[in-house]
């Protein structure tokens, strides 16, 4: 009985902690909460998943330096799970900003790179990036995906591609 109860407890704990564990490698999250994990961290980008800003925008750099990485608070697609090239709304240093996912920890398709962290580039409402450079490689598929997502009169996401330093 006690065992069963414990199992249920840990399961509930996992559900609560799943989002905390997503970006452990970059943030080096607080050791106290991490010790409670009994399962692997969830690698999907859902609400409350932590991300890593990889451009050189002032806001992003400060947030990462303080060890308070942005959290995803909404994914702009119908599934609620962010895939590569998806737009997300993040909470960063008390503000709401939009960003584009440019690298995922999740399993990827064959020949497409899988990253060790969940990378994000901050953009404004027009789709132009807040920074001027991305300091990690980004997957080449983004070129196609972002071009497809850019509509004639909407936001122009291809500006993100212009500040990339390297493709993989």
């Amino acid at each position, binding site marked *: 009985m006690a065992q069963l109860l414990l199992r249920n407890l840990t399961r509930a704990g996992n559900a609560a902690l799943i989002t905390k564990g997503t970006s452990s490698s970059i943030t080096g999250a607080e050791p106290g909460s991490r010790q409670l*994990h009994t399962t692997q961290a969830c690698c999907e980008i859902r609400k409350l998943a932590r991300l890593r800003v990889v451009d050189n925008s002032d806001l992003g750099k400060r947030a990462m330096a303080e060890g308070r990485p942005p959290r995803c608070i909404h994914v702009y697609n119908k599934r609620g799970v962010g895939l590569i090239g998806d737009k997300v709304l993040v909470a960063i240093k008390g503000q709401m900003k939009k960003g584009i996912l440019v690298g995922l920890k999740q399993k990827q398709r064959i020949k497409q790179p899988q*990253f060790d962290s969940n*990378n994000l580039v901050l953009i404004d409402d027009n789709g132009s990036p807040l920074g001027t450079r991305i300091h*990690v490689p980004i997957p080449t*598929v983004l070129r196609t995906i972002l071009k497809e997502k850019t509509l004639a009169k909407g936001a122009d996401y291809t500006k993100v591609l212009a500040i990339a330093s*390297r493709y*993989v």
Partner: protein
Amino acid sequence: MNINVRILTKSVAQQYAFKRIVTFSTKPTQQAAAAAVPQQQEVTGPTVRKPIVPAHYRFVYPEFLPDPKVEWRNAVREKLERLDMLDRRRQIELPEFYVGSILAVTSSDPHAAGKTSRFVGICIHRERCGLRARFILRNVIDHQGIEVVYELYDPTIQKVEVLRLEKRLDDSLFYLRDALPEFSTFDENMEAEPLEEGAPVPINDIKVVLRPRPWLERWERQNLLGVANIEQYIKDKHRKSAEKVQKPWEKYDLMKQYRATIPEEEQKEIFAEVHTELHTLELQRKRNKRKRTFVKPKHLA
């Protein structure tokens, strides 16, 4: 009469027994097949040399051996796949490599600027067999760990180069994900380091240094040889739980081993089928290489 009857029954029994073995049992049939094959060859032509399959073929071409899972076996499919694999190998050189070797894969990529992309990295895992054989490459580029999965027989792959041919102490190197980044950092413009012909593949006995916990997997449970500092980060409780899940008796479990592997007789059959083709391809490649190396000084001069 009695004796006659006995002899008759014996001979009949022998016949039946033989038939029974042929239809139902697996191992004696293979022996019988192995015994039958040389006989046939002798009959067809004594001048034709019997193909001698080198023993290292099962390490060099592991994807030619089917998955030993009984439910997934299908002799016809396996044979067809082998033919397709040979067809692909006629088009492209798929060199010998192992987990721990450093590869450069050039593949066509419709999204890339030049329509091709090249990725250099260490092979951390090889899995699956037949046409589905695949491997994972890992590298750290601009302080960012990146992994790419490639299928060996993917028609979009243009070139597979082995930059450094070596083995590591473990069968898969997933622990590089939790190791310090310098252990999986490789230069993209690395030059290929050729090995001498006929030299055994060197084993790199480098010990990797892990980051502190939390880790992606419980490495302390996996009896890894290529990790230096696991003891530094685990506590007594981890040690105890690791001991609990150990299965030291499994190395004596012959049946398990049998089910997890393709028997030697069957391996011989499979490689006897593809050996001549693979061997001629190898010779062809070697000749081409020699030609290339011979031409080089002319270019310089």
